[in-house]
């Protein structure tokens, strides 16, 4: 007959957690390698326009960015609220784009120079006059592969 045991000490065995740090570290490294840090600190603020026919920019080392938007609050006193262009970490004028492109291109490997893509990250309310000026500068600098940064539109 089965006997009902009582008062017999039966402790729950302690869970072995010694591998927990390793698992967490693995997760940590995964996130560290997958996530992309911001390329620069933005001095202009912009909201991407929306579109549907988007392609991903494949090779990050071949992409250079041009930011277009209004200066953020801390720079507004100095630079006003007009649309400005940011190259790397500083404000720039339209005519500086050519030089920037040439410099960036010469710092690339020779085999990659023809593959350079310029991503224009502009605010959706920007006037086309500014964009057209940038495009003319890019044409003159022979940076013909461009990409208008946009976010996927989910609905009309």
């Amino acid at each position, binding site marked *: 007959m089965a006997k009902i045991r009582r008062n017999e000490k039966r402790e729950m065995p302690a869970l072995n957690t010694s591998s927990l740090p390793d698992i967490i570290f693995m997760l940590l490294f995964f996130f560290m390698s997958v996530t992309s840090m911001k390329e620069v600190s933005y001095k202009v603020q912009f909201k991407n326009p929306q579109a549907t026919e988007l392609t991903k920019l494949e090779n990050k080392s071949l992409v250079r960015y041009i930011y277009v938007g209004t200066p953020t609050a801390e720079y507004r006193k100095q630079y006003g609220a007009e649309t400005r262009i940011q190259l790397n970490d500083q404000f720039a004028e339209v005519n500086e784009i050519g030089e920037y492109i040439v410099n960036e291109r010469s710092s690339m490997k020779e085999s990659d120079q023809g593959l350079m893509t310029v991503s224009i990250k502009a*605010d959706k309310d920007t006037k086309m006059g500014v964009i057209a000026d940038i495009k003319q500068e890019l044409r003159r600098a022979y940076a013909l592969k*461009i990409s208008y940064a946009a976010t996927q539109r989910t609905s009309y």
Partner: protein
Amino acid sequence: MAKKIPQINASSMADISFLLLIFFLVTTSMDVNQGLARRLPAPIPPDQKAEDKDINKRNLLVVKINSANQLMVQGELTDVKKLRERAKEFIKNEHNAEYYPKVYEEDFGGKIGIYKYTKDHVISVQNDVDTQYQAYLEVQNELVAAYNELRDELAHEKFHKSYNELDEEDQKLIQKVYPQKISEAEPKNYGGN
């Protein structure tokens, strides 16, 4: 007497790495870099004047955007949502209409064989200096979408696959039938400030 080395208590290790993990989760931005890829035309050499190409009127689809972001296609006020269909009709000219581009028949080889296409069509986008970037991009987007849809249709018809699933060679073949011909004029001030 052998001294016993006390074991280091590693139970807080998990907490520390958790903290690091959460820090990285919060600070990094997962934004994917995507955008509408376009190709600019090569610059005109300074010693050469910009020549006005003589394009037959029927081969040209003029899309104008004014400073109030209104769209005009061939002189008609149009909604952006209708632009895609309009462009597709124009590019393909299925019924050989005489007000749409001239249709040629050509042997493309490969699986496509002899196929009708409009060789000389050009879509011209003109915008005002004050046009909003979003409006401009929407138009560009719709035109690219029209080409993408046409290419996809052809891929389904001839290869029974979608365009993106084809290998590079077949994609090139389809691009020959539907080359992207979107020309952009210099921005002018069309009045209406």
